[in-house]
């Protein structure tokens, strides 16, 4: 099954570490990202033209960036002082593998949707998604993976006149 392949890459990758970070590490990382973004806002806004009589476009972005820098400083300080909040739950073991598998499946869905088409991609997606979530009743899962994309396709394409990628069924 799909989930059984996951441990081989699930325990060391960056994804794993990101999803399983403690709140303290998460706060430190978030503070660093915020500082980087704030500096970027200052740098980027410095390249903007300042039109006459149309209000200074730098005021609000730079004001927000200063506020964010200040907030990042507090977040970093609190994290380093050990005053971060508690994580509501840790992602571990099977739960972590499940979330990672769904994230990968969803990313893959985005990449192949237009090439392969809605019905085929969604059939495969639902089938694998069901397996990841532990559905083992094939006699239910296969009809489910067939019926849902067909109904959604008919609703959007036929009833709402919103075309979906036909792919191989073009």
């Amino acid at each position, binding site marked *: 099954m799909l989930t059984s392949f996951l441990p081989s890459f699930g325990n060391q990758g960056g994804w794993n570490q990101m999803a399983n970070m403690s*709140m303290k590490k*998460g*706060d430190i990382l*978030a503070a660093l990202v*915020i500082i980087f973004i704030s500096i970027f*806002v200052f740098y*980027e*806004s410095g390249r*903007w*033209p300042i*039109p006459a*009589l*149309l*209000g*200074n*476009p730098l*005021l*609000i*972005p730079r004001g*927000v960036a200063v*506020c*964010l820098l200040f*907030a*990042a400083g*507090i*977040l970093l300080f*609190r994290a380093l002082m050990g005053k971060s*909040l508690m*994580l*509501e*739950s840790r*992602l571990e073991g099977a*739960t972590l593998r*499940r*979330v990672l598998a*769904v994230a990968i499946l*969803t990313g893959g*869905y*985005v990449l192949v*949707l237009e090439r392969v088409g*809605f019905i085929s991609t969604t059939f495969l*997606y*639902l089938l694998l*998604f*069901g397996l990841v*979530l*532990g*559905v083992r009743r094939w006699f*239910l899962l296969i009809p489910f993976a067939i019926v*849902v*994309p067909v109904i*959604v396709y008919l*609703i*959007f394409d036929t*009833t*709402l*006149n*919103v*075309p*979906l990628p036909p792919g191989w069924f073009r």
Partner: protein
Amino acid sequence: MVSLDLLLRGFGTVLSGYNIVALVLGSFMGIIIGAIPGLTATMGIALLVPFTFGMTPITGIVMLLGIYTGAIYGGGIASILIKTPGTPAAAATVFDGYPMAQKGLAGKAIGIATVSSGIGGTFTAICLTFFAPILAKFALRFSAPEYFALAVFGLSVTVTLTGRSPLKGFISGAFGLLIAMVGLDPMGGFPRFTFGRVELTGGFSFVPMLIGLFALSEAFRQVEIILTAPKVKAVIKDILPKLRELKQCSAIFIRSCIIGLIVGITPAIGAETSCFISYSEAKRTSKHPERYGTGIIEGVAAPQCAENASTGGDLLPMLTLGLPGDAATAVLMGAFTIHNLQPGPILFRDHADLVHQVFAGMIVANSVFVILGLAFARFFARVISINRRYLVPMIFICCMVGSYAINNALYDLATCVFFGFIGYMMMRYSYPVSPMVLAQILGAMMESNFRRSLAMSRGDPTIFFTRPIALIILILAVFATITAIRRQRKMLRMQVAMATEGPDEKK
């Protein structure tokens, strides 16, 4: 003032053809979404916005109103039957609803909850109908400085949406402001933070972002916590409440309607707050407060009535000023814009007929969910036990297809998935999502009006303090922030006390 002629014609439109079908369908879907723990009204609206694309604006909007009111009510069903609120707004219904179910009175509890929600919702919809045109007419006097002040007011009260950490709420809001700046400069027309991508010149696609932040992120969380669906053991009978029971709750209805309306109008708080205030007020003013928490109908009627009574209040600032009061109305506002309708006083001036149809739709929606709730109570109870292993993948598909369908663009789908993951990580690390979305809407309004004001005054910032309405709104913003922080702390304490000790905590 409200035009009775337009309102009557509005009822005619709403009750005719596809509109009533869409409303009933929306209400039905809304109750189902509300009844399933983990799915919220905001998520429901975000998820089903794409289904309104092919509809006329009024058909789409009444369908979403049906989802909104139905989901707020539907949360109470799960509270009563499985002791888990279907939506955050139904948290206080647990206190007496579940004990009633344990006594074999689940049907009666659902019946009282349904009628109470209907009374609260109808009252607030009528108030919306009569107050909104007055407020909109007044708002027509507003110019750029007043709109800037209004945006500051809206932003200042988003601090109440901060969840566990005010600092993280502030960061979330500030990021919302930065996201609002992506795209072309509103005055100069030059690109900002677009990284040379043509797709970003109009900013991030708003609806895919909303679907990602509110629906896909929650679906990711459901993957994390996926459990065997709870089994409903209660027997549901005697659903229709007796007249005597309704008379017994009449004082509670009046009080809860007023509480719900006031809480709803107050920006940044909504049904999830009004239900607790109403419950504690009902208990405080009762001759037998010790009976609360043991399974009495008053304990179900108070929160249910107040939570639906806040819906019209929530819609009031959104419709009249373009100022969404909470996450659900922010998503509704997104739905309006998809149909090329910009909420605000101009909408009342240019589309008075449509506005009155919305009022009529809101009133009818509150009757529709009562009828559906009483008629299909046993079905909705069964929905709670739906297998999440099939439901969650369907939510993922609806999110992604909905996002893609807006412009038939892979970019929109990628935006939805990107913000879905961001929203999920934000939830995991206690960053509330709502301030980010509200700040994004208000940020665009704030920035453009700030710069327009400065252009009007040739760069003189005193324009914000020399115009009386703008000054009053700015002063109100300061007071609202202070009051909101204090009230938020009080509410958090009350919710924690009720959650840990039950409704019998010391007053």
